[in-house]
């Protein structure tokens, strides 16, 4: 059966890459922790889980992620309605604002929130410095957009004749919402919530920059254990625990997504009415909440010694107060752009292959199970600690035949693995929504498989390919977790530069960090605005 052979060969390429550049490093990291002196030491692992400090870390991870998820869903669902079910001028810009935080570099957000709550910042008077409120705020800030996009994409596609039918049968607007709309949205909400919980519980950059020494989650704890205390056994134990929880979450999210009706209709959005005022106000408040740290960051970057100045930006051409950096910040930016181009191309190439394969609908139950498994495996990088991945790269890809320690491709490859699931999630829904009979019609008229791809798939999917490329590029620009391990000091990316700047004392360094953060944010924002213009609703939806 030639068709099946073709699928196996196609599947082998991304699988091989995933094994070598994801599973092998992660496994290597775990192995190092589980067998510290060559033989299995499970006692040591279990021992780690009984330490009070670990309990504190676990408890903080769970409650901060849980609370942030609940807030993101409560705020995100009404905003999804306003941005995806209503129609008004400027909506496109608001949608871009909402999805933006998701691709903002975590360090940038960390810097922005720190600036906001610091003495002299906009919220300086509230004395939030050193409380978990800032961490919570940053987590919600990041993930509201995920809920809006996921639920919004589903909501947009809902056939509203079901709602009209319920209304015609005598349901009040509230009853229509609770009996028809909400059940239809529930798979999307559950799916979004599980992904958001996943992101919150593995958040690295913001917790590291905002948590200081008092607050650590599992991810930052793994970082501390590996880099500061060199306690690999404990790190491995936490990694395994995290991996287990994440696998369960991903499976749950996958199950929830299966119940979601794919974009069947594009229902006509309507203009806002008087009754929508509350929701519109809430949306305005959420947008305000999302914009505040950004605006305050921009303001801070332009203030120097009590006046307006571009000094912090001029400083970017140097290497910081007290030579905090080995190279200039602008070099970091150039390097970031180059790495992002490489990572995005790599992620697109692999992601399109994976999306192509997971969007097929095999008839036999066995092949369908394989397809679902394949789909799930490529979602793993979403949840596996980027720290684990980065450290795994360091300890496994350091000897022949794969000695990549000095290879300039190490960072792009790691970032591509992080961006890969996002590319798949952007492209696969579009490919799945193509009626397979379109391809069959083309084939029956004489088009070979490649020709079918060109004439049927490409015209319908090229926007999503472009959008995925942009998305991957933006994510790569901001990637910090894995890069922080892998980028060499003389070859840092801009997020690494920013982290270095805020870790070094000095007003000028913090000022430079704000300026560099603005530059990075502007770069990712521009890319995301272009992506938003493509109007691909699967971007940032899960």
């Amino acid at each position: 059966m030639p068709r099946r052979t073709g699928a196996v060969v196609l599947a082998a390429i991304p699988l091989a890459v995933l094994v070598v550049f994801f599973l092998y490093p992660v496994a290597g990291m775990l192995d190092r922790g589980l067998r510290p002196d060559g033989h299995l030491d499970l006692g040591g692992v279990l021992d780690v889980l009984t330490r009070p400090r670990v309990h504190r870390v676990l408890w903080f991870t769970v409650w901060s992620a849980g609370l942030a998820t609940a807030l993101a869903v409560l705020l995100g669902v009404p905003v999804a309605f306003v941005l995806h079910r209503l129609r008004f001028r400027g909506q496109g810009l608001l949608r871009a604002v909402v999805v933006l935080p998701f691709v903002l570099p975590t360090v940038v957000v960390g810097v922005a929130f720190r600036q906001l709550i610091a003495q002299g910042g906009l919220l300086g008077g509230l004395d939030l410095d050193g409380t978990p409120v800032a961490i919570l705020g940053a987590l919600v800030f990041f993930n509201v957009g995920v809920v809006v996009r996921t639920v919004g994409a589903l909501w947009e596609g809902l056939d509203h004749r079901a709602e009209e039918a319920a209304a015609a049968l005598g349901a009040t607007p509230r009853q229509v919402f609770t009996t028809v709309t909400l059940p239809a949205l529930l798979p999307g909400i559950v799916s979004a919530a599980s992904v958001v919980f996943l992101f919150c519980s593995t958040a690295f950059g913001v917790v590291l920059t905002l948590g200081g020494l008092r607050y650590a989650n599992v991810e930052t704890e793994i970082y501390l254990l590996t880099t500061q205390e060199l306690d690999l056994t404990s790190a491995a134990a936490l990694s395994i625990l995290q991996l287990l929880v994440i696998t369960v979450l991903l499976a749950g999210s996958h199950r929830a997504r299966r119940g979601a009706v794919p974009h069947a209709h594009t229902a006509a959005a309507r203009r806002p009415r008087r009754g929508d005022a509350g929701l519109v106000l809430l949306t305005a408040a959420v947008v305000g909440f999302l914009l505040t740290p950004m605006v305050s960051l921009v303001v801070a970057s332009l203030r120097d010694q009590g006046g307006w100045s571009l000094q912090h930006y001029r400083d970017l051409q140097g290497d910081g107060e007290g030579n905090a950096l080995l190279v200039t910040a602008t070099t970091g930016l150039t390097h970031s752009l180059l790495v992002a181009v490489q990572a995005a191309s790599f992620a697109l190439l692999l992601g399109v292959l994976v999306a192509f394969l997971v969007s097929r609908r095999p008839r036999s139950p066995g092949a369908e199970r394989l397809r679902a498994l394949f789909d799930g495996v490529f979602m793993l990088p979403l949840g596996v600690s980027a720290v684990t991945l980065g450290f795994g790269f360091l300890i496994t890809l350091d000897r022949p035949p794969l000695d990549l320690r000095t290879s300039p491709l190490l960072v792009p490859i790691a970032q591509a693995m992080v961006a890969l699931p996002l590319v798949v999630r952007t492209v696969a829904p579009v490919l799945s929504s193509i009626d397979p009979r379109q391809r069959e019609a083309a084939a029956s008229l004489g088009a070979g498989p490649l020709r079918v791809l060109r004439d049927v798939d490409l015209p319908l999917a090229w926007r999503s390919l472009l959008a995925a490329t942009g998305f991957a590029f933006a994510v790569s620009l901001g990637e910090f977790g894995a890069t922080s391990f892998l980028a060499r000091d003389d070859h840092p990316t801009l997020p690494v530069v920013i982290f270095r700047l805020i870790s070094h004392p000095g007003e000028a360094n913090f000022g430079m960090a704000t300026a560099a953060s603005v530059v990075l944010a502007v770069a990712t924002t521009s890319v995301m605005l272009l992506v938003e213009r493509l109007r691909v609703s699967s971007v940032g939806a899960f």
Partner: protein
Amino acid sequence: MGLEIRDLTVRFGETAAVDDVSLDVPTGAVTAVLGPSGSGKSTLLRVVAGLETPSAGRVSYDGEDLAPVPTHRRGFALMFQDGQLFGHADVGRNVGYPLRLRHRPAGEVRARVDELLDLVGLAGYAERMPATLSGGERQRVALARALAVEPRLLLLDEPLSALDRGLRERLAGDLHDILRAAGTTALLVTHDHEEAFAIADRMVVMRDGAVVQDGSLDEVWSRPADAWAARFLGYASVVSGEAALRLRERVDPGADWTEVALRRSAIRVSEDGPFAATVLAARMTPEQLRLDLDVDGLGPLAGVAETNRSVSVGERVHVSVVTDRLAPLRPADGRSRRTP
């Protein structure tokens, strides 16, 4: 020669969608596969198109085994129920698509597209986008596209089912004429016996994945294989057993059939009819009164009366039997699958 299907079985998991089917599609004629949904007729068509892999059996064309030939090299064309036009291309590009695949010169493509659009009655539509067309127009464009490269076999999957009734009847007539004019060999699957009768020359009746009956329209129509086939072909009632013998005695004493299918119009209210009946229900249509009758000695049967005759429920009437409106069923031993 044409298309030959031998002992074809297609299984999805445990169930056999197509179960040991053999049939021929002779060149130059239109063959209809008629069956209810779930009878396996669409699966059969997909196997012929190369879109489904058979579990067993052989499909060949002019003696060549088609198993190793992928869909796009079979030289067939498949037209779907809903046309499946490419929404991103205009009508002209849709129709010219198979020609461009074969690298025909642009001038020739243009001329052929115009010729085809003319054939399907849509001259001047080349610039229109599919989304702006009505359902019937879309099906016409799909037909033109399928005919563009003169396929050696045209496969039609319920080509008219998605259309409303009036349009369906008109387009069925057009489809019949267009296929004859182009001399196309075609295999049509449908659940609508009227569509099959309007378009096809030959008919294959399928049920539960197996062929119940096949032959020319007249053969199938005049000798339904069994009571199920007769009802599916549009016969209103089937009479068997004692009642059938009583009926045979009256209308055709020399015959030897034991079971007979009757169209509604076979039983007609008339003052001098040989059977007496009680009216169970009556419904007015523009053409005639449609009746449910309990005919003495024959049991419940469908019948008709002239619209100018008033008939009320419970009334006793006389009915006559119009002999050319009934079809004897094949005797049980003739019902087995045709083996070629």
